[in-house]
Every structure is written in C-alpha cells, then in structure tokens.
C-alpha cells in the first residue's frame, strides 16, 4: 500500500476520513494475501461494533445482533479476496455483507447475488483509482451529513429500517453521479481485462 501513500501526496485536499478508509483496504489486502490475524483484529475492533449497531437499529435483539456481527466479520475474512477497492470502500463493502446477513436473519429470505466481478487479471488495482474512490465516498459522506434532518432520517430509515420499496423516495440530491461514473469506469476496465 506504500504506492497509495506516494500517489496520495500529489493530491490536494486529501482528507483524514479518506486516509482512514484507505488504511482499511490495506488491512483487507493483508488478510487476503497473508491471512494476517493482527490486521483482522484491528478491522474487527473498528467495524464489528458498527455492524452490531446497524443490526440493532434494524430491529435485531442484542443477542441476534452479536451473533450476526460475528458472522458478518467471519464472512469479511472469507471473502476478502473478492474485495475490489476501486469500486467500493471497505465501509461500503462491509455494509453490503451486513445488509445481506440482515435479510437472511430477520426475514429468512434467500438473497440472490449478482455475478462477482472480482479484480482478476491485474495483480494490483491502480492506486490512483483506489484513492479516487475513497475521496468520492468521503464527499458523499459529507453531503449526507449536510442534509436537512428530515431528509437524512428518511435515508436512514430506508437503509436501517427495512421499509418497503414504495416508501423510499430516491430523490435526495446526493452527489451519486461522480461515484457512479467512477464505478462505471472500473467496471468497463474490468470487463475489458476479462475478455
């Protein structure tokens, strides 16, 4: 991950939040490549309590949330080789695992998953792409913080509260366009490389 750090210096307005996120993708790489238990312990200390909180806000009892959070973190270890840092931050990726676990546990539905597009043919994702994804996600986070309370609560309800799809209003004015173009670019490259 040293490559990331040297690239990062050339970017102005680099934010602390982005740097912290970037450190987590390094942790995942160490888990995937070297089964690094120390890296996992740090990742666990940060994310497990957040996953547990997310699950309790979604209606899980403390006991169920504890059990599911452990299961989510075990899945993080077992899927670490599928994480693509150019398409999602570690928070986003762990969110999707926690969301899927919530569907399994609270609704007892099966959760169909799209085909995986793991980072295949290239040995390492481009550091600049990883950095750009961290920064755009940070912009999104700032935008969510800046939303009027009523709007932010609606989004929180949608993501935590298991609302039906009719109740979710998607128009929030969040800067999803940039992050979407970024992901689109990463997918295009991936498809091209897989041909």
């Amino acid at each position, binding site marked *: 991950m040293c490559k990331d750090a040297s690239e990062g210096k050339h970017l102005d307005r680099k934010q602390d939040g982005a740097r912290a996120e970037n450190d987590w993708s390094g942790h995942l790489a160490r888990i995937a490549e070297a089964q690094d238990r120390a890296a996992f312990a740090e990742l666990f200390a940060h994310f*497990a309590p957040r*996953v547990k909180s997310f699950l309790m806000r979604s209606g899980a009892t403390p006991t169920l949330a504890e059990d599911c959070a452990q299961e989510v973190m075990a899945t993080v270890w077992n899927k670490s080789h599928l994480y693509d840092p150019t398409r999602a931050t570690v928070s986003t990726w762990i969110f999707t695992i926690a969301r899927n676990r919530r569907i399994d546990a609270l609704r007892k539905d099966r959760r169909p998953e799209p085909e995986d597009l793991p980072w295949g043919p290239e040995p390492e994702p481009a550091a600049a792409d990883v950095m750009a994804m961290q920064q755009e996600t940070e912009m999104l986070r700032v935008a969510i913080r800046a939303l009027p309370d009523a709007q932010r609560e609606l989004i929180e309800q949608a993501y935590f509260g298991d609302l039906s799809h009719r109740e979710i209003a998607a128009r929030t004015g969040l800067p999803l366009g940039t992050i979407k173009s970024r992901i689109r670019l990463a997918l295009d490259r991936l498809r091209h490389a897989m041909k």
Partner: protein
Amino acid sequence: MTELIKHHLTDTLLTAYAAGSLPEAFNLMVATHLSLCDSCRAQAEALEAVGGCLLAECGTEAMAADALEATFARISTGTAVPARRRDSCSVLPQPLRDYVGGDVSTIRWKPVGMGVRQAILPTSSAASARLLFIPAGAAVPDHGHRGIELTMVLQGAFSDEVDRFARGDVEVADEELEHMPVADPGEDCICLAVTDAPLRFNSWIPRLVQPFLRI
C-alpha cells in the same frame, strides 16, 4: 453487449435493492439484471456507498468480550468463498442458475396454453418469480396487472405496445399497462418475470387457466 441494453431498472428499485428492502423475487430480478448491465450495477454500487457512509456513522454497540476469539473460531470452520464468475456461454446469469440448478436445459417447463410455457421459481411468498418461454412469433395473452410486474428478456426478444425488448432489457409494467407481448419471429423468447400481485388476463380462456399459473 452490456451497452446494448436500452430498458433499465428504476432508481426506486435499485435504491430498495441497495437498502436491502426488496422481496426475494424482486431481489432475484435485480441481481440477474446487474449481472448483465454495468450501467445499473454502477448505480446500485453508488447507492450501496450511501449505506457504507451510514454504517460508518451509525454509532457502535460493544461486542461481547470473547467476540474476536469466537469469530476466529467461525473462520477456522469456514472456507474461502469462491467467486461466482460470469459464464458467457450460458443463457441464464448465475443468480438464476442458482435457482434453476443449471442453465436453460435444466428448466422444468409447464405448458400454460397457446405454446407458452412457464417455470415458477421458489421464492418467499411476498412476490413471485417465474421463467416464461414464448415460442418464436407467438403472443402472450393480452393481460393487465394488479401490482408491479417486471419482465426481463434472457433470450430472443419481444415487442408490445411500449417498445421492443431484447436480452437484458426490463419492462416495468404497472396497473396502467395492458399489453400483449409478441416474441420476435427468429428465436424462441425466454424471460424472467416477477410480480407482487396476480396477473389478470382479459380473454376468458386465459382467465380459466389463471388459477394454474399460480401468479
């Protein structure tokens, strides 16, 4: 080929998918479409980033004292999850193959009349999913909808009053739409259809058949 898709999923559906609030049958539709459509996948992953931001800021709940040890114990009994890769030769994307147990040749079709066949997929009862087989050139009986019905083409193409739909295209039909899809003459058409309410057919023969459709 992903660039050729003209009819996409709505933002409302993709938001509900990202948030994890869709019934299983609709999840299956979205997962299948995302396997073919990079544009919608990028939108879905951007909406998942919203979830990631909320997770990062949703506060913490203390884990049990032995939680890390317990998690390592779970890890030691589990195995690395293999990637579910694209198989460009198959008609059914992986999420559907998981439900069918294989590709098109393993689908257990049941005739529903006029050459049309269907296979109902096992999902939770909140909504239903089925595969439809429409012979080349044939029409599905004129029908309306009580709820939302999504139809995605997997093979061949069909046309109706709205437009022409080919592989990867999704038609979103609501209560307003009464349509009669007709398959292109060149190739049998296979679709995935999901709905949150029973279909209603407008001519009396299909109406008699409807109880057997179980949709």
